[in-house]
């Protein structure tokens, strides 16, 4: 366990020294700011066709939910793929896999450290987005009670709890994207291919969900789990999509990670 922690800490240090990390987290921070600034300048009504869009100008508390709705489709999957698709493949690119695999750490420890670091980066990006959106929205429109999807009023304190729960369950779904990216990163050994492939996977999962005839499998698509948080915004909270997201995502996270792990354990490290 100590070995994994050491690898994990160095993976974080490596992420902190790389531009792409700041590109990803930076985008997660800048998008909500740009969103709020645009709406303030625009003056008209908020987006009416998204959850909470109608009440956007009533309270800053609605901002992170609306921004999450927009970013959940491809913005955050891309931000996630940017690191998850790169974190193993970049070792190939730099030729450093042989450097770290000839030390005193097992391959499994190295892989585990990379998985943890990718997930940490993803959590940081999602929660940074939420925090910045909340602050920007509050500056623009003040902090007032939220109107839930069921039409009831939610006090500010409870609204913040709902926001944390929302970001939490969304992060679980997004981890399915990260896991797929880690697998591609391990298998393809190519950073660009893995990042693009991971984003394509996330988009395909959502596209499948809107095609006619996919109703029966729709509850089990990863894309559907991206919307599980809508359940929190009902009164009383609808836990069914949340619970389903938890176990469905366990599969979407577990299977690619296990596959990537096996490949990483057995792969030949040659010419890299």
């Amino acid at each position: 366990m100590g070995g994994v922690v050491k690898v994990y800490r160095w993976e974080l240090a490596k992420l902190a020294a790389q531009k792409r990390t700041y590109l990803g987290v930076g985008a997660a921070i800048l998008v909500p700011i740009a969103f709020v600034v645009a709406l303030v300048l625009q003056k008209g009504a908020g987006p009416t066709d998204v959850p909470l869009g109608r009440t956007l100008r009533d309270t800053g508390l609605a901002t992170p939910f609306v921004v999450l709705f927009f970013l959940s489709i491809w913005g955050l999957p891309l931000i996630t793929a940017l690191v998850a698709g790169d974190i193993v493949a970049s070792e190939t690119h730099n030729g450093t896999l042989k450097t770290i695999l000839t030390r005193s750490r097992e391959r499994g420890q190295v892989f585990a450290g990379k998985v943890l670091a990718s997930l940490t980066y993803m959590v940081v990006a999602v929660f940074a987005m939420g925090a910045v959106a909340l602050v920007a929205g509050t500056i623009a429109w003040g902090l007032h009670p939220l109107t839930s999807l069921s039409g009831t009023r939610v006090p500010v304190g409870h609204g913040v709890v709902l926001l944390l729960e929302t970001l939490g369950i969304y992060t679980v779904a997004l981890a399915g994207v990260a896991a797929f990216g880690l697998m591609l990163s391990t298998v393809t050994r190519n950073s660009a291919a893995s990042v693009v492939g991971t984003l394509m996977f996330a988009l395909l999962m959502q596209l499948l969900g809107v095609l006619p005839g996919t109703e029966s499998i729709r509850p089990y698509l990863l894309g559907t789990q991206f919307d599980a948080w809508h359940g929190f915004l009902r009164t009383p909270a609808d836990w069914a999509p949340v619970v389903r997201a938890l176990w469905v995502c366990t599969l979407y996270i577990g299977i690619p990670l296990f596959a990537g792990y096996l490949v990483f354990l057995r792969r030949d490290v040659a010419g890299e």
Partner: protein
Amino acid sequence: MSDEPPVVARGLVKRYGDVVAVDDVDLTVEAGDVYGYLGPNGAGKTTSLRMLLGLIRPTSGTAHLFGRDPLVDGARALDGVAGFVEGPRFYPYLSGRKNLELLADYDGRGARLRIDEVLDLVELRDRARHRVGGYSHGMRQRLGIAASLIRDPRLLLLDEPATGLDPAGMRDMRDLVRRLAGEGITVLLSSHLLAEVEELCNRVAIIRKGRILYEGSLARLLETASESYRLRALEPERARLLCLAQSGLDDVVLDGDEVVFRAGEQAVADLSVALGQARIPFTALVPSTTSLEELFLGMTEGEPDERPAEAVA
């Protein structure tokens, strides 16, 4: 401490599709050896070293380092072992020191405490704060040695450590290897340069097209390579005829305006006298250093009993 030899490889084979990169390689490196693994580029040296370090899986055969198999024992098999294959590689966006700190943390066992010492040894202390991305080839090579030494190894595996270095860098690298060997570290060094191996190593294995042609002491190898000489005379054709008539000279051929032949020292001394008596002026009569390629040709075309039977089977 283990009494097992630092390196024992038996029947190592690595196939990539139809290509056999390494074909039934046996290597034995004893404690205290400076072992030269000699062969032209593409002969299978690096692939062999990768198998020793557990980076790639042999198609068949086994490799043991101090009695431990990297495929079975994982990273523990590399206890006391350090080195690099195909040039050391580092994170370009981290400083030299940060790279070493990372690897030291991967190693544990006080490796961090040795960082300053090894940076001094490879003369990189002044540049350690700079990002590796800006390092020259020679500096990366030295950082590779430093990264190996923080493991406090008993066995160093170095893949072409002097390749790409300027003459001064090569000399420094060889001095360093000699010094480390002097401190009791067993060294396995791959090279395509005979001179380098001759200078540093006591035992060698020669590999060509994935097969071991020779394994044993360097001294014995050099005895088997018969000396070749070059004679530059003002009348090359007359000189050649004289050489043909001399006893003790073999394989006499005219190469441009030089006569090339194989002979022992006494026969060469006799030849110089004969040239004088025949009044054939000559400007040079020199041993031509046996190149690795010539040595290979000599080995592959020589008598079969010059090679260990099992290595050519």
